[in-house]
């Protein structure tokens, strides 16, 4: 029985357009002073945040191989213990020094994005006890993207956990799994490129 049925319709999506930076990362658009000088999500960790420091850099490529310079990218992740900083989290108390959310522009000149964060702990799959490999949820919006795109970044050193991960395992095309796994750079640094279209198109999720 549905006690509270669906009575409204989610609003249709519209592209973020070429000037999404004004609304979401205004300092990148030339509004240096607004909102106290920094955008929400610009800093994910402070000195008291628990966990291994990592950084993630990358670019978002369109179907011609050109990096997107007018996009935004958001991360959403668990803390080092695998807990979310959210009222929906009922498995324990998450790290108060970690919101778990970050947002950055793709650079207006180079297209590169960069995040400093921590490596997330493992979380269960749906309502089961089975653990997923550590991952970070990613959301991308830009001109030409009609509905924001959800994907995930997994970690290259987690070979065993990735091999038994229930989400990675359910991909019909196992030759696409590599599009979700970051490339290791020097210690604690990862490269994660997102390909919107064409060869090596990143796996995007309907969540």
């Amino acid at each position: 029985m549905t006690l509270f049925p669906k009575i409204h319709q989610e609003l249709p999506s519209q592209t973020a357009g070429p000037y999404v930076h004004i609304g979401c990362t205004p300092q990148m658009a030339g509004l240096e002073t607004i909102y106290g000088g920094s955008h929400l999500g610009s800093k994910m960790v402070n000195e008291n945040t628990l966990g291994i420091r990592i950084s993630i850099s990358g670019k978002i490529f369109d179907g011609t191989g050109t990096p997107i310079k007018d996009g935004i990218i958001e991360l959403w992740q668990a803390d080092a213990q695998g807990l979310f900083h959210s009222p929906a989290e009922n498995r324990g108390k998450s790290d108060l020094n970690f919101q778990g959310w970050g947002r950055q522009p793709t650079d207006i000149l180079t297209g590169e994005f960069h995040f400093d964060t921590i490596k997330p702990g493992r979380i269960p799959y749906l309502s089961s006890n089975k653990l997923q490999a550590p991952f970070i949820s990613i959301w991308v919006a830009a001109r030409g993207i009609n509905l924001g795109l959800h994907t995930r970044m997994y970690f290259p050193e987690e070979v065993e956990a990735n091999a038994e991960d229930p989400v990675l395992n359910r991909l019909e095309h196992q030759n696409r799994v590599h599009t979700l796994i970051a490339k290791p750079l020097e210690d604690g640094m990862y490269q994660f490129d997102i390909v919107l279209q064409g060869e090596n198109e990143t796996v995007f999720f309907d969540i």
Partner: protein
Amino acid sequence: MTNKPPSSGGFFPRNFQIHPPAYTPDYKSSVARSPKLALVSIGNGISEIAGPVFGHEELGPTDNDLIQNYSAKGQSPIGERIIVYGRLMDERGKGIEGALIEIWQANSAGRYRHTKDKYIGPLDPNFGGCGRTITGEDGQYEFRTIKPGPYPWPNGINDWRPSHIHFSLFGPGFSQRLITQMYFEGDPLIKICPIVNTIPDKEAIGLLIARLDMANTIPMDTLAYEFNLVLRGCRSTMFENRPEGN
């Protein structure tokens, strides 16, 4: 923390009949930026049901007032003064309290304050063009701004955007994340806009058109437009037995 916990284990599936498909060739920017392969459907676990929390203390007192948040002291931007207000709710009609709403828009001449906008319409020294707020009790929100002007854009040879305000919306769950645009009742440019027309369901376009609300204007000062915002709703669960609107 100001978000209310979501009341169930997951969200209603997205209705892809009302969202633009990724590939919409009349909107040319989508051609090289549309994934060609199918989205992979995965269920809602804690990473999808939970979402970031924003506190009122992170925002400034004039962040939702675009007439004031960039203007010099004692001055205001040029244009038609408007209030845009409404309610953020889910598909079950439940108000979403404590959610972050961000907006951005062109000035009254149709020009954005952005290093890349080279349109001939002049910049307004007193207008920045962005605002943000956190929804109140029952999902209420409001912005004060000026009505943005239409502007031409490079797509077809003579394409113009109708007056519009871009909206970025958060709900309690990260899978509710949505960016959309608000249009103004009566604008003749709406029905010929290639971006509006990426929406396949013509009736659904009406959900993005704000209604002129003469009852909530400020006489001799400011017009009002009502624009209600709907995000995906939580499915009910057998554990949910609280009265509606909790």
